[in-house]
């Protein structure tokens, strides 16, 4: 029997307007596994905060779909917030939008931590170039970094952040620390050591296995590469500690009561499993989770006819009335799907009974304009 989530007394409804309208909430983070609707939700929430709650809002999007970016007026990736003028805001609300440029953000971090000459050396190093554009985790780190910057300036009532399209929502929390650890790491310090001791390799001074390691690095990667690497690490030397410190700072913002995490999921097994892990993780890190946004939910318009009845009836009338027969099959598919989605969703609601839930119906077409976002925001507000 199909009942909707809204009918389920054990599931709490998420009060989105309560979150967006609360002046004490300054950061909303939308996370979740790949493709579930994080960017769409972030944009819709930011729009609603500006239009309905009069807040001066900035949304940090990451790799938005091209058409969504266009309707937000984001044609270039310039790493600065741009006001979205098509917004119908009341009470001085404003919406500003930006797209994360991870390379440029990395450059800014470098510039902030070192003198211009050193920074130049770092920018041209092939390792830096590879790392700032391709290293797994750079995007997560830079998203956190940008959030930290936006928050520090204190010019926004509300910062809504989208998170990178990683496979697992946990990457958003773990990758920055991984990159920070890596850049601060023991391995890098050892590699940079020859530069510090005036060219004499410390590899001979440390353990035998490390000597073997350096020999191997030479063999596998070639001597040129080692030179570049140690140049990179040497130049970064002055910034050691800085990376970790910065990511720890942002981590603290995420733990503060001014932050609200929204976990976005679609009612499919993989996404729900990820949401389940992530909610558990937020709890153990004492990060404030405001609720689950269940996106792309299929809700039948009537539940008076079951999937089985619709299928049987469809066969009976096909010869005489093919249109109605097809309509019944569409309905049967819808009912079966809704039932599957609810079974899947219960995996989450059973293990996190205290987490409030808001749902967004699957729209027949993609969401890529302001009107579409407004509708999504409204859907969220009504539950």
């Amino acid at each position, binding site marked *: 029997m199909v009942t909707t989530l809204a009918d389920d007394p054990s599931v709490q409804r998420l009060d989105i307007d309560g979150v967006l309208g609360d002046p004490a909430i300054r950061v909303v983070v939308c996370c979740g596994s790949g493709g579930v609707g994080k960017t769409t939700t972030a944009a819709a929430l930011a729009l609603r905060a500006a239009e309905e709650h009069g807040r001066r809002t900035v949304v940090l999007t990451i790799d938005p779909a091209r058409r969504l970016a266009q309707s937000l007026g984001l044609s270039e990736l310039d790493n600065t917030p741009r006001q979205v003028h098509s917004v119908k805001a009341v009470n001085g609300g404003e919406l500003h939008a930006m797209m994360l440029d991870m390379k440029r953000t990395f450059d800014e971090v470098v510039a902030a931590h070192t003198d211009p000459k050193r920074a130049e050396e770092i920018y041209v190093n092939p390792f830096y170039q590879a790392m700032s554009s391709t290293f797994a985790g750079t995007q997560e780190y830079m998203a956190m970094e940008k959030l930290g910057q936006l928050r520090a300036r204190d010019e926004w009532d509300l910062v809504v952040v989208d998170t990178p399209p990683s496979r697992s929502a946990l990457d958003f929390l773990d990758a920055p620390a991984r990159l920070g650890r890596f850049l601060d790491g023991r391995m890098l310090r050892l590699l940079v050591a020859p530069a510090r001791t005036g060219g004499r390799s410390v590899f001979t001074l440390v353990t035998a*296995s490390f000597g073997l390691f350096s020999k191997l*690095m030479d063999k596998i*990667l070639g001597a040129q590469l080692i030179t570049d690497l140690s140049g990179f690490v040497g130049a970064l030397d002055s910034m050691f500690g800085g990376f970790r410190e910065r990511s720890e700072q942002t981590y603290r913002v995420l733990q503060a009561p001014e932050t609200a995490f929204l976990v976005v999921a679609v009612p499919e097994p993989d996404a729900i499993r990820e949401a389940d892990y992530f909610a558990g993780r937020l709890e153990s890190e004492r990060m404030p989770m405001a609720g689950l946004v269940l996106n792309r939910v299929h809700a039948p318009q009537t539940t008076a006819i079951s999937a089985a009845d619709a299928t049987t*009836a469809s066969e009976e009338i096909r010869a005489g009335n093919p249109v109605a027969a097809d309509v019944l099959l569409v309905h049967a598919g819808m009912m079966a799907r809704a039932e599957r989605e609810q079974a899947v969703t219960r995996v989450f609601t059973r293990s996190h009974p205290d987490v409030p839930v808001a749902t967004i119906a699957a729209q027949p077409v993609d969401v890529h304009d302001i009107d579409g976002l407004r509708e999504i925001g409204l859907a969220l507000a009504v539950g």
Partner: protein
Amino acid sequence: MPPSDHAPLRWPARLHVVTGKGGTGKTTVSAALALALAAEGRRTLLVEVEQRQGIAQVFDRAPLPYQERAIATGYPGTASGGGGEVFALAIDAEEALLEYLDHFYRLGRAGRALRKFGAIDFATTIAPGVRDVLLTGKLKEAVTRTTDGRRAYDAVVLDAPPTGRIGRFLNVSAETARLAKIGPIKSQSDGVAAVLRSPVTAVHVVTVLEEMPVQETADAVAELQRLDLPVGSVIINATQPPLLARGRLSQAEVRRGLAATGLPVDRDVVSGLVAEARAHLARREVEIALRDELIALGRPLVELPQLPGGVDLAGLYELAGTLLEPARASSI
């Protein structure tokens, strides 16, 4: 039963790289293709490189080791015989590096020590290009391997990284050239690049009929072509049966149909059903436009149906059967 001897015609390559936007069905389609190409007593190897144990999951098996293991019988996969064998392998970059070092430098136990020290992790992390060369190098080895003068595998199917990373993953020589201008990694990657750019390889792109996956498919096809990598088929996964393709949808017609079978005909029910049907038609219109965009890419199209209850082993064989059906005229 679909004529399975179409396999070599329809899928002429020996190394099938299956990419697509995340979640569109890469792992499912790779598994089905490995089953399909193992029809008629052939032997295939299904490979994954992302340490996700996706293959073990679709075949409902324990996690795979870094070792080629028989995992299923080829299509048709019944007692009627004829099916060959599908092997599976989860390539681990660290293991591949150790194997490679062992091969060239006879490291023995020292290699394990390196691993404990984190050196291997370090080497593969600092230079992602190196990691990819190791992974694709192992693929090349499996594709070209012979035993007793016979090819070890008739086909190798790779459950590849998603569209966003596929160009970089396959464009190995360029990526490593940026980092290593000479040395063994360089020559290794040149050999791999030659195989990847030859007709031995076909890169297939899986998509569903939604805007972003279709957009990424178009982008990926363009990127692969620019990199001179051979693009194979575009595979449209999880398609719905065409409903309401003909006839005019109206409340009256639906009410008449419901009445004919004794189902309730209250206004709410009728208008609810009609609203669902209209949403379906709106969706279908979008899908038709998206399919046209895919046709315009000029690659062979293959469509796989959405399996209503999700994908189990029987479902994989069903999809394998569809992959073996001869191409339809519209899709060329």
